[in-house]
């Protein structure tokens, strides 16, 4: 062992000795409580799946989330903005195909056993592969949530409408896809109907109709333990097969504004740092524009800038913040600015100075995130989360 190793071992030993007494284990009993609660949820989902297999229509998430009974088609809470219900799904099936189309009522077991071409997930989703599990994985992976049946492509044979989930740690995305059997009897993908990608926040359940259309219960956000269920706006939307792809044929095409929520939006300009100054840092600014598009006012707005390790705030531009903070977390460096109330329609523009130590930046891509907080400074949902962050560059 060289002197460098000895030096570091000494430093780490001191670090360990100082930190150990500060660690306060929640305890193994808390582990049991957490696992017990999760298992209760899993059992609920499992029972719902079992019920779905018996009853036919898929009700998995419905049971989990205590959803209301599916409304009858055409009784959605919002007027249809898209094209009227298409007649094509209910049109007579092509006569040539009906006689020979293989049975597409693919059992759940067969779906699970088949190595199916997975329709693509949306966005930065780390699920892939040609396989999904029977139940939601504890950690990560694809799983088959529910299956329903209808003659979606009107060839005279039923097709399997599958609701598939991707779980990665605490994040879930779901999608609806349709599988059928080809002339050889192999299970193939007919097409993807939709994914729970913004502006959709969640897919609750699917309900395949005798006329071949697919009704899907969607929400504008993921239901969580931290928010009341009424915050989630839910709608039934209907989709049909055009012959080449799925297209919405009935139901609302957008979510109505939630009068209790603010819609924060943020943009930020690129940062061009000046040459290394005498203080050993490079200095720059970004102009951040935050708008509350309403309809509700925001009690507080929290702005987070992810610029890189050890980047610090400087200058008068931060004086508009009620509080300024910086995160010590080197895995996700933040500068924070807590802003006061913003009424609906209000825009704030901040010219924020930053300094990066050394000549070399630790990262070139940067991110600005805004979040609405209530009077107690607890996070509250945003009317449109997809525009709550802006990516920009620094050089």
């Amino acid at each position, binding site marked *: 062992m060289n002197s*460098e*190793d000895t*030096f*570091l*071992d000494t*430093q*780490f030993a*001191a*670090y*360990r000795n*100082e*930190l*150990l007494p*500060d*660690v306060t*284990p*929640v*305890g*193994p009993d*808390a*582990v*049991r409580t*957490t*696992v*017990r609660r*999760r*298992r209760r949820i*899993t*059992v609920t989902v499992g029972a719902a799946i*079992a019920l779905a297999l018996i009853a036919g229509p898929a009700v998995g998430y419905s049971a989990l989330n205590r959803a209301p009974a599916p409304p009858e088609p055409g009784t959605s809470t919002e007027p249809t903005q898209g094209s009227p219900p298409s007649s094509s799904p209910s049109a007579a099936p092509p006569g040539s195909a009906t006689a020979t189309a293989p049975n597409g009522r693919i059992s759940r077991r067969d779906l699970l056993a088949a190595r199916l071409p997975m329709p693509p997930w949306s966005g*930065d989703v*780390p699920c892939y592969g040609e396989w999904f*599990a*029977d*139940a939601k994985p*504890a*950690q990560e992976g694809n799983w088959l949530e529910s299956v329903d049946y209808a003659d979606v492509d009107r060839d005279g044979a039923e097709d399997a409408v599958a609701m598939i989930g991707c779980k*990665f*740690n*605490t*994040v879930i995305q779901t999608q609806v896809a349709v599988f059928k059997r080809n002339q050889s009897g192999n299970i193939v993908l007919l097409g993807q109907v939709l994914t729970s990608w913004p502006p959709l926040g969640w897919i609750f359940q699917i309900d395949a109709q005798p006329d071949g259309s697919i009704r899907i219960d969607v929400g504008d956000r993921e239901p969580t333990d931290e928010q009341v269920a009424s915050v989630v706006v839910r709608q039934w939307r209907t989709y049909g097969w055009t012959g080449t792809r799925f297209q919405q044929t009935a139901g609302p095409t957008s979510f109505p504004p939630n009068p209790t929520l603010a819609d924060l939006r943020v943009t930020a300009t690129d940062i061009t740092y000046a040459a290394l100054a005498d203080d050993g840092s490079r200095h720059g600014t970004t102009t951040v524009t935050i708008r509350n598009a309403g309809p509700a006012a925001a009690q507080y707005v929290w702005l*987070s800038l992810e610029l890189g*390790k*050890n980047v610090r705030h400087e200058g008068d531009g931060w004086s508009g913040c009620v*509080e300024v*903070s910086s*995160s*010590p*977390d*080197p*895995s*996700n460096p*933040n500068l*924070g600015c807590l802003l006061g109330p913003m009424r609906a329609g209000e825009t704030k523009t901040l010219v924020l100075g930053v300094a990066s130590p050394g000549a070399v930046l630790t990262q070139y891509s940067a991110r600005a*995130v805004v*979040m609405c*907080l209530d009077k107690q*400074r*607890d*996070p509250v949902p945003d009317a449109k989360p997809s525009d709550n962050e802006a990516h920009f560059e620094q050089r």
Partner: protein
Amino acid sequence: MQLSTPSRLDGPSPPGSGRIDFDEFYQAHFRAMTVQLCAYIGDLGHAQDLVQEAFCRAFSRWEKIVKYDDPVAWVRKVAWNLATSRWRRARTAERFVRRQREEHVPGPSPDRVAMETALALLPTNHRRAVVLHHLADLPVSEIARQEGVAEGTVKSWLHRGRTALAAHLTEGKEGKGHE
């Protein structure tokens, strides 16, 4: 439906079963694992959350994990994976807001701040290797296994990480000495 039998949700393993008791396992490793992860991410509260989550996942499949040669390695890997998950980072902003309102406790010593600052300056791979080697006492072969890279790569990370860390710490101490 895959609903496995709950693994001793309500009590320790039977006496004389010859298996590692989950409670003892937790008590024996939680603190050390948290310190290691804190050195990597620089946030003690966050590190505790991640290690607790890793133990939850271990408990869910304890019957299987307890048979592994090194159950500690499994839990540590899960905790570190959680720390580096890009998806999990999406929730960091919310956690950060909450942390701003937490009660303040006596601050860390200058040495601890210096160590965390110096570690934060290292590239991620180098930092992981250094922390795992010096705080978790893992040999190069085990770090290589955890990271899924060749031992030579770990040796390189360790060499460069240690040199840079020692330099940062030394600079910091000399800087203070000149004040």
